[in-house]
């Protein structure tokens, strides 16, 4: 192993232990790691933004186009909108910085609204319009019950979200059922997610034992 790799392993182990020490309590090592983490990650994203966004999407097409292709002058507009964000530091024209925010928010709001209606409301509702008769529903009591549970669950949760009606009487009863469905879902999902979290921890343990302390031969990267 070359020096660079060894140094990276030792530093990596040091930082790993610094973060883990937070479990015991806040301490100077964690605070140090936290600061370096904030700094390095910010530096990383600066490099990343230039490498992945500015250079390919702005610098190349506008300033250094490959031979034979014209400059994309239109990119001056987004560049300008980007600069406008900084007018907030000049008191007199600070209000101009809102322009970029407004376009950005407006555009994505439009896109998201369509995505929610077309990609979520419609298909999720369609999946709930099922037949209790066809598709062998009656052939298998288990399937039939499952279908019923899905439909009742979706509808009762939707009733829970009604804001116009007070949770009393029938609406109250159904929305209570909706809450129970939510609780089953939350409990189950919580219990289930623990598995994924454990495997991340295993990854760190193996890094410390294998790569740093050098015990054993190879494992999870």
């Amino acid at each position: 192993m070359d020096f660079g790799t060894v140094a990276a392993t030792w530093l990596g182990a040091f930082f790993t232990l610094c973060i883990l020490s937070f479990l015991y309590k806040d301490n100077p090592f964690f605070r140090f790691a936290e600061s370096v983490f904030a700094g390095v990650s910010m530096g990383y994203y600066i490099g990343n933004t230039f490498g992945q966004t500015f250079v390919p999407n702005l610098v190349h097409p506008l300033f250094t186009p490959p031979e034979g292709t014209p400059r994309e002058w239109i990119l001056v507009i987004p560049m300008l909108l980007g600069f406008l964000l900084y007018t907030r530091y000049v008191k007199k024209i600070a209000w101009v910085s809102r322009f970029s925010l407004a376009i950005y928010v407006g555009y994505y709001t439009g896109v998201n609204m369509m995505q929610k209606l077309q990609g979520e409301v419609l298909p999720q509702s369609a999946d709930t319009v099922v037949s209790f008769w066809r598709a062998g529903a009656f052939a298998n009591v288990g399937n039939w019950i499952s279908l019923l549970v899905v439909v009742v669950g979706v509808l009762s949760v939707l009733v829970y979200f009604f804001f116009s009606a007070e949770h009393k009487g029938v609406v109250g009863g159904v929305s209570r059922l909706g809450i129970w469905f939510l609780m089953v879902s939350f409990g189950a999902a919580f219990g289930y997610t623990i598995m994924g979290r454990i495997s991340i921890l295993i990854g760190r343990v193996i890094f410390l034992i294998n790569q740093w302390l050098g015990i054993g031969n190879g494992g999870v990267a």
Partner: protein
Amino acid sequence: MRKHPITEVSVAAVLLLLAPGYALAQAPETISWGLRMENFSALILFVVFSGVVMTFIRLAHGGRDLYIRRIAGLNAVEEAIGRSTELGKKVLYVPGIMSIDEVQTLASLAVLKHVAKHTAQYGTPLEVPNKDPLTYAAARETVKEAYLEAGRPDLFNEEVVNYVTYDQFAYTAAVTGKMVREKPAANFLVGSFYAESLLLAEAGQSTGAIQIAGTAEVAQLPFFVTTCDYTLIGEELYAASAYLSREPVMLGSIKGQDIVKFILLCWIVLGILIYTFTGNTAMHDWLLSQ
């Protein structure tokens, strides 16, 4: 009618956004004016939805009284700020980790405005650490304006709304560190969250703060529900700003959205009945892209 400067400005806006892009857009000429039939169902839903919501906004504007049910998490907002004020401790507001291209973030900023107004009135210190730079910029505008409206612009400085870093976990490390060190009396975790949800909420819980969370990220709700005192679930988050502001126009839109929900419910029930008893799948199929 007096000519408004807005007209010239709007023409400029159209030119700025549309014209250059449109003029330069190069595409096959085979396509001409028409409807995208694959999105036809969505078009109808969009028209009905916008129509109903706007009608109710209009009705509300006309002064109709609109009832909205109690949302526990939102009633607790003032209680949480009040407790911070009593204890002389800070209110921490985390607007999620996504940018303002995410509607949840915008909904969070609307709640933030309400929170900031109250903290400014009481002179309670507020801190809003940010992961996304555009959210940071917008949150800064929001809080600044809230302080101005509350008559305390003097309390605003560059540290109230601050920027931490763009990395999800580096941000989490910094915010959890802050929670443990400065022990804010109230933590708001409202917006779009991913894996850091539990790290933030559990760290906050360990300091004994009142925690109010809100998100529409289905996968993170279990963690907020189990570790926070109040959680705004999905749609409640989007309704929060209307609920808190009590502005009739906003409440009208909530009402309209309820009506559409009701129509959808009826559609599903009717669709199931027709499908089950006649085998006709039309109501199911219509919901999918044509």
